[in-house]
């Protein structure tokens, strides 16, 4: 997007950026003020980017100047990159003035790469954003071809190897210093640099060879995309905006059908599905769901998504709807159980998905045995769909049915040295003990003694019953000592 700062200004403030007045964006660097970009009128008057402001004022006295705001420019670029997610999920801003779109696997939705690019340019122009685009195998080649001419280049696979050498070296995303050095050496095209011995080039220009290799596809290049590229992407665009929930649901249904069919053909299933709604007012809303088993069941995916559809505000209408599967994995085909026998876990998977998406997956769990005698640590929470543990606690009968989340101190009357309590007072109520069993001594694990969280005292647990028959699980902290008062706690209720 040439002249991105000017474009942004003309979009947010059409008056100040009227085309019939010369306009320049000025970058202030200490006491130096240099022109960053100019609009067409100013260029025709002879103002150039890189000029000093004083020189420019001499050429065009009525030049309107605006201070550059790089942050706002980059933020606007980020917003534009999210807007472009209607074409492909993986888009990224390429500062200062470009966008990356990884359209791997997405051209199919637009019946060809050319149609995709044309639609993109058309839609951007309609929004008042002039742009140029190129499609190539590598990011570097696409960058170069988008900037070399006004024409839209669509390179065939491998085409960049033949065409790139003819381009000037300035299109290799090099440092200004390197460019100046190359110019001094009289190297103008990429092909000329490629003919030189690599060792010497590497010695002289640090960034030349990596950039060259990236452009040629000999070295990998990582772009920080907002979403990782995924071939499991479907989209539907509407000439007439859709607004009703029924239409949205139908669209989701349609996209899910297409996506599930493709997943089924590849033997894959998705663990996470995300639907994005691109509004006519350029807003983007998304809903996502997760499944506990890799799924490609259109019906369940649609019903999970539909339960969240009400959060979408259609506003002035929805222009594009996209559906994407993240985290795909191979689906193991299950044999349908014969004669009524059923696989428990697979049966309840839809329920877990539904509850997990509604309440949050951390609010649906199963308990499992943990290797600890310490009561609070003897249970761990595992995912509801985790594989069966087939293990059980050995002393469950002597454990309370409800455990207090934290032991609470109680006032106890007990005979010394180590008799169970006669009565105790908890939460302002005194309970007389009739029967008791114990003690059951629980010692902390010695290897955890150094961790401050763990109290290092042993606990003597008693199971006691009061006059009404209610049973409590109380313990004395530490061994009995004649010197100090023993501390007692209630830790749970037996039933």
């Amino acid at each position, binding site marked *: 997007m040439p002249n991105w700062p000017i474009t942004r200004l003309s979009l947010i403030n059409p008056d100040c950026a009227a085309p019939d007045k010369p306009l320049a964006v000025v970058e202030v660097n200490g006491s130096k003020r240099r022109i960053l970009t100019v609009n067409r009128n100013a260029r025709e008057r002879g103002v150039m980017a890189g000029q000093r402001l004083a020189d420019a004022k001499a050429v065009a006295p009525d030049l309107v100047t605006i201070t550059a705001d790089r942050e706002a420019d980059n933020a606007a670029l980020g917003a534009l990159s999210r807007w472009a997610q209607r074409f492909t999920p993986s888009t990224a801003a390429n500062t200062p003035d470009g966008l990356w779109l990884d359209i791997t696997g997405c051209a199919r939705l637009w019946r060809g790469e050319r149609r995709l690019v044309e639609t993109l340019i058309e839609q951007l122009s309609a929004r008042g954003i002039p742009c140029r685009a190129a499609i190539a195998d590598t990011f570097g080649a696409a960058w170069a071809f988008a900037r070399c001419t006004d024409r839209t280049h669509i390179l065939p696979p491998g085409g960049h190897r033949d065409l790139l050498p003819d381009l000037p070296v300035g299109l290799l995303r090099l440092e200004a210093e390197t460019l100046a050095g190359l110019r001094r050496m009289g190297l103008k095209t990429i092909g000329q640099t490629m003919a030189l011995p690599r060792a010497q080039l590497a010695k002289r220009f640090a960034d030349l060879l990596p950039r060259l290799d990236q452009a040629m596809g000999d070295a990998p290049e990582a772009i920080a995309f907002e979403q990782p590229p995924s071939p499991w992407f479907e989209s539907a665009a509407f000439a007439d905006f859709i607004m009703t929930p029924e239409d949205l649901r139908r669209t989701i249904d349609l996209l899910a059908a297409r996506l599930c069919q493709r997943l089924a053909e590849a033997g894959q299933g998705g663990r996470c599905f995300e639907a994005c709604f691109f509004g006519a007012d350029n807003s983007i809303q998304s809903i996502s769901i997760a499944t506990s088993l890799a799924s490609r069941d259109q019906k369940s995916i649609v019903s999970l998504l539909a339960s969240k559809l009400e959060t979408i505000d259609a506003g002035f209408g929805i222009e594009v709807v996209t559906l994407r599967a993240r985290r795909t994995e191979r689906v193991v085909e299950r044999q349908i159980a014969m004669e009524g026998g*059923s696989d*428990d876990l697979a*049966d*309840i998977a*839809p*329920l*877990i998905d*539904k*509850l997990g998406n*509604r*309440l949050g997956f951390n*609010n*649906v*769990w*199963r*308990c*499992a*045995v943990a290797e600890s005698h310490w009561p609070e640590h*003897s*249970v761990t929470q595992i995912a*509801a769909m985790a594989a*069966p*543990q*087939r*293990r*059980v*606690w050995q*002393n*469950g*009968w002597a*454990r*309370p*049915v*409800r*455990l*207090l*989340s934290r032991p609470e101190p109680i006032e106890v009357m007990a005979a010394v040295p180590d008799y169970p309590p006669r009565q105790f007072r908890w939460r302002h109520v005194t309970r007389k003990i*009739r*029967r*008791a*069993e114990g003690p059951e001594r629980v010692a902390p694990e010695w290897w955890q003694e150094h961790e401050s969280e763990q109290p290092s005292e042993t606990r003597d647990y008693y*199971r006691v*019953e009061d*006059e*009404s*028959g*209610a*049973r409590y699980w109380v313990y004395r902290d530490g061994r009995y000592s004649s010197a100090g008062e023993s501390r007692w706690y209630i830790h*749970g*209720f*037996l*039933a």
Partner: protein
Amino acid sequence: MICEKSIQIARLRVKIGRIGAQSIAEANVTAPRLMRAPSRESVSFLMEGLPAGCIHEIEGASWDAETGIAASGFTAAMLSHAAKGSILWTVRRDTPFAPRLAAFGLHPDRVIFCRCRNDTETLAVLEDALRTKGIAGAIGEVEHATLTQSRRLHLICEAAGNIGLLLRRRFRGVRPRRKAEGSAAATRWRVGFAPTEAAEAELGPLRWRLDLLYRRGGMPASFLVEWNDEARHLRLVAELADHETEPHQSGLRRTG
């Protein structure tokens, strides 16, 4: 005209339905505690566990109405013989301690816990759970369920053949509703503690005082039962002249 009439009739029907439901509920709550000795039929009914295909309400007695300790134990005991399949237990704040549930016969691999924020959420989760194949039973810790909500649950249970339990608890900070409402539950239990009568100072088997407050097509009754952890079954305790006799002081007062 016709339309108006039919609307009016429908309204009256709803009104009558409400009156009926209310009177049943009031009878449940305020009925004089004429607890009968359990009949042979109701005993067998208890020993075989709660019947599936319908919902049951369980609540704690006295202060346990808030904590639901005995009620949780009884719930787990009643499900220990439930058919194969998973059990969903919706909790609000505190979770039952899984090792104890395992000792009741609810293996941790079978029990799925689910935390809900309010009654509406709990009941919706119960509906979804009971509709799911592979769920043998679902327990919902609720403060209150309306007649309509319990009817919906009942219909789902009836169709699916699994068991739904409403563990009614008065959560702290939630004011109890003054007006009791009818319920479509097949049985309604109040579970209280009962002191053991074992040899000196030892804890005997766990005892519960069970009040069958309501039973569809049956009479209310009161039981004293013992739970046997090894055999995993309830045993009825004979209450022959086991209770304290009423003090006969009223006559004196009348003459004096």
